[in-house]
């Protein structure tokens, strides 16, 4: 963590550069790359929440696709059954509420366990949701999924716009705003006493319990918060994609979320964000260049795990600390 601080010290400048970069993006890159970036930023929100569980609480979930699906389907089903409510300021709270409910129920079962058992259980429960979304086709559209139309905002309608126009216009700024709000809130959570308690649980469960932290309850809170982040990401993703299918609740998708987090590095706060952005480009270009894209993605994952366990951001942080303190390198 000490290395990290030395890397982020000129933090404010970096944040300003990143924010303005994100805001000016529609003018710089093509619509195609912009939409790809928007997919990345929705996953980045999910990965931020995911990392609260993996990096800060020490629980690896292979089922976060379920809460993503909860948010995405929350939006899509509202569109289908309550067309009057189809407005962003209502939809986002709905998505948060639904993902809160589902992650509270699933989390209650999961947090009784840790390690492998926790991972399998989270996986199995997400497959439960998958099975329900898949089988109740008259409600959820089954494997065809549901269409998500362009939403309104405070009575203002964008119905005359086509989706790319909507995405590169208003929605892009909305997305960037939501992302930074989520980022700042997560930063506060991590640095709050609650966040410190989670880290204490991760580092030593027995000791944490002895100083009076209610381990299981805190794990459940962390689970719910990260589930809601997934739901928020899922809802925002639904508008970008325009279409939701049960696949987002399948455990393979959850595995991709884990992949993103690790690719960026879960030891660094901003790591998962970097990972989510890179992963999207990696996957798309692998899919575009070869039929065997899963081979490339899988091989990349294995190489990262073997060679660069800190992920991209972890590697950068280490590099930066080496450049700053060359004496360390000489000593080592």
């Amino acid at each position, binding site marked *: 963590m000490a290395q990290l601080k030395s890397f982020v010290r000129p933090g404010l400048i970096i944040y300003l550069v990143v924010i303005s970069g994100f805001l000016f993006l529609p003018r710089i890159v093509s619509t195609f790359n912009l939409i790809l970036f928007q997919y990345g930023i929705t996953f980045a929100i999910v990965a931020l929440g995911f990392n609260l569980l993996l990096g800060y609480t020490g629980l690896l979930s292979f089922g976060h696709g379920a809460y993503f699906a909860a948010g995405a389907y929350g939006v899509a089903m509202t569109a289908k059954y309550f067309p009057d409510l189809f407005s962003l300021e209502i939809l986002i709270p709905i998505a948060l509420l639904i993902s809160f409910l589902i992650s509270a129920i699933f989390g209650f079962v999961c947090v009784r366990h840790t390690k492998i058992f926790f991972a399998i259980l989270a996986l199995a429960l997400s497959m439960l949701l998958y099975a329900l979304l898949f089988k109740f086709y008259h409600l959820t559209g089954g494997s065809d999924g549901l269409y998500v139309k362009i939403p309104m905002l405070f009575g203002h309608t964008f119905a005359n716009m086509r989706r790319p126009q909507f995405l590169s216009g208003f929605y892009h700024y909305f997305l960037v705003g939501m992302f930074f709000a989520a980022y700042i809130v997560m930063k506060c959570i991590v640095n709050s006493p609650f966040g410190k308690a989670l880290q204490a649980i991760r580092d030593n469960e027995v000791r944490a319990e002895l100083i009076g932290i209610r381990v299981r309850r805190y794990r459940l809170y962390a689970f719910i918060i990260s589930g809601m982040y997934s739901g928020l990401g899922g809802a925002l993703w639904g508008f970008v994609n325009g279409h939701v299918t049960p696949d987002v609740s399948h455990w393979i998708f959850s595995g991709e979320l884990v992949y993103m987090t690790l690719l960026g590095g879960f030891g660094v706060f901003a790591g998962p964000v970097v990972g989510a952005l890179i992963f999207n480009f990696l996957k798309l270009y692998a899919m575009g260049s070869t039929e065997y894209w899963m081979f490339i993605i*899988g091989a990349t994952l294995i190489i990262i795990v073997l060679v660069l366990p800190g992920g991209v951001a972890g590697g950068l942080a280490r590099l930066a600390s080496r450049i700053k303190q060359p004496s360390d390198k000489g000593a080592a």
Partner: protein
Amino acid sequence: MWPIYILNGLYFAAFIFLISLGLNIILGVMGLLNLAHGSLYAIGAFMAAWTITRLAEGASIFILLPALLTGTALAALFGLFMEYFLIRPMYKRALEYQLLITFGALMLFEDVIKMIWGGEAIYASTPFVLLGRVNILGNPYPAYFLLVMLLALVVGVLIWLFMAKTRIGVMLRAISLDREMATAMGLKINRLGTFSFVLGAALAGFSGALVVPTTPALLGFGMEPLILAFIVVVMGGLGSLKGALIGSLVVGQTRSLGIAFFPEIELAVMFLIAAAILVAKPEGLFGR
């Protein structure tokens, strides 16, 4: 129709038992959840299906033998490579990395299958057709399903004998009971770990080879059985062979009755049973 439902349930149980047996041995001895287990199962299935289509002309039921052998052997070989190159460097690493490396292996294997056998389905129903049907209480029933149950029973008994009576079996159980103490007693943990991983992979390949005459080999063949095996492992308890048996019986019967009576929520009911067991008994039916 009741006897048929029960028999179907037993058939599902038999093949899920074989898969979860391999998964459970690896989990018990190495403490590793192998997400690529379904892919090893698919490799066994594809290899067996390929063998059957090569030998199909004028064949008798005995073409099942080379099919089972090649399927098992290829899956075991893949298991050996996977253990040696991917799992072994991970022994000392945290759980997240171990799980992720098997997830990477899953993606690799799915595309390796596509590279070797192409993206198309392979139909290998010759043994299934050759065995024909038998009459059970007035209902015709495929004899091949009975053969699967029989073989699963034989393999189950053999594994139990192996674990209970042989020297290596006792050493494997010692490792799964107390890894540190077993190391201190001088057991060669790495070599036994490799052995158990290859054994698990071979069991996965065997069950794939056994099942493939009843259903065409497709891409993504191992995904659904893997999930069922996870449910079995969760229900029965990590690393418990008895748990795997009981768990697969529950899952098999639920599935059979579910398909007959409540097809829409069949999978959901199965998960609910698993969740109910876990809330009542968090370590699973026979977990430690």
